[in-house]
């Protein structure tokens, strides 16, 4: 029993210690963004890797989610004779929740895990130590451009997801099921507000991007220095970032509605 309590205590202390280290690491990234030179070339390369190369996945996912939403919501709304509200329902659910959250989860799986694996591989092959020995800060040179790129691309990818989702639902509702196109778009236009919906969506995506940037780079930077360690860190990035994104979504939604 005492052993069990001792282990629990040690684990809890370890967790608290790691949170402290993550916060300190985040502070170092923030500080690195203010220290010249800003690594534009690395930043653009990371935007390409995390953003541009994710566009196809985001488009396909957005369109598919739009199809499903169009079909499900049309059938549900039709029971109450409210199928004209399809544009409103699709628009609000995609812009406020599904767009930022699903984009966050998809980018976590595609780009976040890749960044962890890349930095982890650099750690085990001593490339980060090599940079340190040249008096080059790996956080400034390697971590900061990748973390900021994730925060930069997330709102853009989320916007693409939402646009494709709304288009997908339009195709199903209007072109396939015969809903009036004008009423779909009018419902969408009248229901969506900039501050309450669009701004909330963009802020959420930005925060998800910041969270993912921090978690993905930290896991790679601090992974155990062997291949199994990189593999564990990559898995941990996906799990931790997904949970953090879902929790943050709840908190942000609650805060926004105050």
């Amino acid at each position, binding site marked *: 029993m005492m052993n069990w309590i001792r282990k629990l205590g040690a684990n809890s202390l370890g967790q608290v210690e790691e949170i402290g280290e993550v916060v300190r690491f985040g502070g170092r990234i923030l500080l690195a963004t203010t220290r010249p030179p800003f690594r534009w070339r690395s930043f653009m390369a990371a935007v390409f890797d995390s953003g541009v190369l994710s566009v196809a996945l985001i488009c396909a996912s957005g369109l598919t989610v739009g199809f499903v939403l169009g079909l499900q919501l049309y059938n549900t709304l039709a029971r109450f004779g409210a199928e004209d509200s399809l544009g409103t329902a699709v628009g609000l659910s995609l812009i406020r929740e599904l767009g930022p959250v699903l984009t966050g989860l998809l980018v976590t799986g595609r780009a976040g895990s890749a960044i962890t694996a890349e930095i982890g591989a*650099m750690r085990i*092959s*001593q*490339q980060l*130590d*090599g*940079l*340190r*020995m*040249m*008096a*080059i*800060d790996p956080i400034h040179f390697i971590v900061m451009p990748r973390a900021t790129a994730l925060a930069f691309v997330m709102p853009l990818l989320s916007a693409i997801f939402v646009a494709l989702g709304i288009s997908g639902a339009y195709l199903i509702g209007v072109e396939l099921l015969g809903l009036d196109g004008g009423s779909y778009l009018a419902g969408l236009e009248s229901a969506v507000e900039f501050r309450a919906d669009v701004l909330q969506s963009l802020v959420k995506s930005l925060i998800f991007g910041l969270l993912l940037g921090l978690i993905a780079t930290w896991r790679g930077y601090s992974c155990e220095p062997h291949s199994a360690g990189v593999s564990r860190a990559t898995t941990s990035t996906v799990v931790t970032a997904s949970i953090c994104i879902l929790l943050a979504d709840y908190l942000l939604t609650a805060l926004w509605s105050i």
Partner: protein
Amino acid sequence: MTEAEAEFGHVEVRGVALAFGHRRVFDGLDCDFARGRISVLMGGSGTGKSTLLRMIGGLQKPDAGSVRVAGDVIETLDEAGLAKVRNRLGMLFQNGALLDSMSVFDNVALPLREHTDQAESEIADRVHDRLAAVGLLDVDDLLPGELSGGMLRRAALARAIVTEPEILLCDEPFSGLDPPNVSRIEALLTHLNRDRGLTLIVTSHHMATSLRMAHRILLLRNGGCVEGSPAELASSRDSAIREFLGKDGAEHLSRLGREAQGAKG
């Protein structure tokens, strides 16, 4: 350089203790690396040769004791302080540690681009000069992954010396090299030491080359070290030293010892 300057400890290790879990690597290690001299670290696998180099570079903190590099106590420095010290150091890692997403040219040019205001043409000249010195030609656009092990190590050495450091830490510089390239790297390191006063700390299992180059040899064992000039080690009756050096090393040392005696006579 006067004899007094040469004997001044450029790197001083005092009472260093370090353990990885239950395995004790150093237990009160004391040693000095003189300014402008070539010191060769020897010892069996796991005796802490690479770890000692990492400590000197500030990449590994000791559990106890201190490491002083050119007057600065390494373990008391923050990242900014360490960066200042590292500007005076070069390090060749055992696996090269080149950035695998950058070409060989960009890897070697990186410290110059980061720490100097040199024009790109000057940087290119310097990079090509260093690559030629290690025997690498026409490799500018290759990625590290496209080089052989020996070429990779030589490219890493070019990067380590491109900023003309005061102290060069080399982890197994001859490993994986063919005989002509061993001679080339030996000549290059000896030249840098003699003509530019570079303090060189080398770990090596390449017995003959190390013994030829070394001003001092430090044999790491049992958490501490035995040190001396090659001639002193040649006359050592310590069976552990003779066993480690083996037949070839002992013969080589005896020859060096006889040569030293002859020179005195």
